[in-house]
């Protein structure tokens, strides 16, 4: 099955070699790699800011950074990580690379728009770097008015413009995915045969399309208000600052799901493949993804329980928030049940995937706590909330991103990564992560507010633990950069299907040829037809493999 050829097979990587052939490519696989380069860059920028923050907080007096500098660091950390890493992370890289391969298409529906999306992303990245170098912005990533419009002393407008432009990139990519999944599926690829990763990307693309424009408008209003001095949210004119929060969270709450849904898709692929067992309740998983995407739009005001919304609104949004937890709970239980009677191997992607399930569960359950109104009154805007969403976003999304990256690495590069190192990195990540963020739950309940550059010395021990964990985490995130880089040149050649997985993407060679498939595949089987008893599987084209 896995034929290792001596010299490089003709692939999308070797088709052309000029720089122009990369910068002007319309091949979704190359664009995925371009995006990969960009978001990795921003991941380390955001990570650098996080490192500074944690270093600064080692000392309760907060003497490492000036207060203004600290405020700029956490703002930049938030803005870069949210819009320049987490939101584009899985969709633009793994999604871009895999969607056409998984549905048996030769490319996305609009390849030029796909490329344009990358350029637009980089232009917005330029603005955010510009903002960083001229002095940064100190509003936090949430840009709350009237602080951002009338009082902030940073460069709010470049930051708002950066996020505004970034939205176009999101919309272009999301639009491309939705249309592609609707129109370009291979013969036989019915909706109920789509891999869950495709479902997840489909759901997330819909959220991007419907939510991002609202953010774009909101930030445009903020920028105009700051520039012209009068605006829609100005309390001096009778404008309502809470209106900004409503509009901001109408985007930014679904945005949380933009970050986590693709991760759920990745993990479903991983858990099933390494447990050698069909995903438990495939249909339930697909419907859960879609209902999370829809319900995510109904819960935004749970960020505003203490902000001054009416009591009735608080109650309604609390109830709706509990509803969104139901499909998430279904997913967690189904992943766990997928392990039942499996034949589980603990390769690095599986370690990341199991880590994801555990950390996501903790993040989700603490989410229930902050959805409970009186608890939220106490922990809102404290480190409890910080810990909660880092469990979802870092413990969840970033773990899944790394898991997916390892899993599809052979497909993307044609090389195997060093398994031992990868397992070590996965375990260190898990440990470092927990050491970083678990103490923050305690800090939060003790009452340490977020965005404080100095704090009560009584809290120092927890902060020191957290900072120690952060340094481990930093090392754990740098490791893959090293060994994956090494494997690019020295890794063993991967066959077409090193994991013996069922998806269409594994039917073509690794790395795939320019237009993915020599001949359009015909789909004859549901995904995940693994048999744990004898290790055999049925690929999606209907071929059985012992």
């Amino acid at each position, binding site marked *: 099955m896995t034929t290792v050829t001596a010299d490089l097979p003709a692939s999308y990587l070797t088709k052309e070699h000029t720089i122009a052939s990369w910068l002007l490519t319309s091949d979704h696989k190359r664009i995925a790699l371009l995006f990969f380069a960009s978001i990795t860059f921003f991941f380390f920028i955001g990570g650098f800011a996080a490192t500074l923050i944690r270093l600064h907080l080692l000392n309760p007096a907060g003497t490492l950074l000036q207060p203004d500098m600290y405020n700029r660091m956490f703002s930049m950390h938030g803005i870069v990580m949210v819009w320049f890493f987490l939101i584009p992370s899985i969709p633009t890289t793994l999604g871009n690379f895999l969607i056409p391969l998984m549905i048996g298409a030769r490319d996305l529906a609009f390849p030029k728009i796909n490329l344009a999306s990358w350029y637009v992303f980089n232009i917005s990245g330029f603005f955010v770097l510009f903002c960083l170098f001229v002095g940064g912005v100190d509003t936090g990533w949430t840009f709350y008015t009237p602080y951002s419009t009338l009082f902030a002393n940073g460069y709010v407008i470049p930051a708002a413009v950066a996020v505004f432009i970034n939205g176009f990139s999101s919309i272009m990519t999301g639009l491309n995915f939705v249309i592609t999944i609707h129109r370009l599926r291979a013969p036989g690829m019915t909706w109920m045969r789509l891999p869950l990763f495709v479902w997840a990307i489909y759901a997330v693309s819909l959220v991007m399309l419907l939510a991002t424009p609202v953010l774009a408008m909101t930030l445009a209003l903020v920028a105009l208000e700051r520039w012209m001095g009068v605006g829609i949210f100005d309390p001096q004119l009778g404008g*309502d600052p809470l209106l900004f929060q409503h*509009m901001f969270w109408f985007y930014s709450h679904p945005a949380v799901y933009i970050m986590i849904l693709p991760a759920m898709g990745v993990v479903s692929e991983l858990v099933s493949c390494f447990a050698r067992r069909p995903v438990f309740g495939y249909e339930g998983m697909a419907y859960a993804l879609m209902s999370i995407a829809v319900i995510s739009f109904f819960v935004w005001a749970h960020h505003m329980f203490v902000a001054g919304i009416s009591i009735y609104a608080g109650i309604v949004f609390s109830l709706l928030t509990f509803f969104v937890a139901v499909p998430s709970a279904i997913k967690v239980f189904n992943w766990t049940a997928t392990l039942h009677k499996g034949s589980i191997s603990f390769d690095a992607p599986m370690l990341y995937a199991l880590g994801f399930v555990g950390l996501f569960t903790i993040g989700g359950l603490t989410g229930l706590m902050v959805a409970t109104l009186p608890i939220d009154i106490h922990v809102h805007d404290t480190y409890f909330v910080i810990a909660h969403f880092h469990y979802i976003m870092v413990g969840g999304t970033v773990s899944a991103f790394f898991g997916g990256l390892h899993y599809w690495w052979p497909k993307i590069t044609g090389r195997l990564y060093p398994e031992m190192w990868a397992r070590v990195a996965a375990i260190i990540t898990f440990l470092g992560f927990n050491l970083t963020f678990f103490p923050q739950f305690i800090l939060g309940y003790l009452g340490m507010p977020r965005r404080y550059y100095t704090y009560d010395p009584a809290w120092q021990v927890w902060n020191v633990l957290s900072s120690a964990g952060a340094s481990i985490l930093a090392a754990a995130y740098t490791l893959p950069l090293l060994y994956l880089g090494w494997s690019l040149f020295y890794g063993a050649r991967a066959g077409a299907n090193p994991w013996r997985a069922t998806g269409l993407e594994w039917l073509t060679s690794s790395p795939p040829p320019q237009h993915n498939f020599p001949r359009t595949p015909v789909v004859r089987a549901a995904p995940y037809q693994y048999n744990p008893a004898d290790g055999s599987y049925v690929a999606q084209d209907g071929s059985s493999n012992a």
Partner: protein
Amino acid sequence: MSAQREPLLPYVVAWLVLMLLLGLSVLSAYLDIGIFHPIVNFGIAATQAAIIFIMFMRLRGRPSLKWVFAAAGFFWLLFLFGLSTVDYATRTGFPTQ
């Protein structure tokens, strides 16, 4: 693909109706109908939009995915308007400076 000619008359009629509705909208501005102003104005606007969508943007014909996408934005706005009304309709505080 054949070059059969599509009659232009329906489009001209649609245009005439649109102009008529514009006239109505302007007329309504000068009537003393109090609270019904926005209802009339936006009712007329929605009718005009529907005509433009169906005729000029060719939503006529077989049901298709286009219908879903055309309606999606408007439908989704209902959630923004509806759910925030839960707050605004029951809130007592509003900035006064």
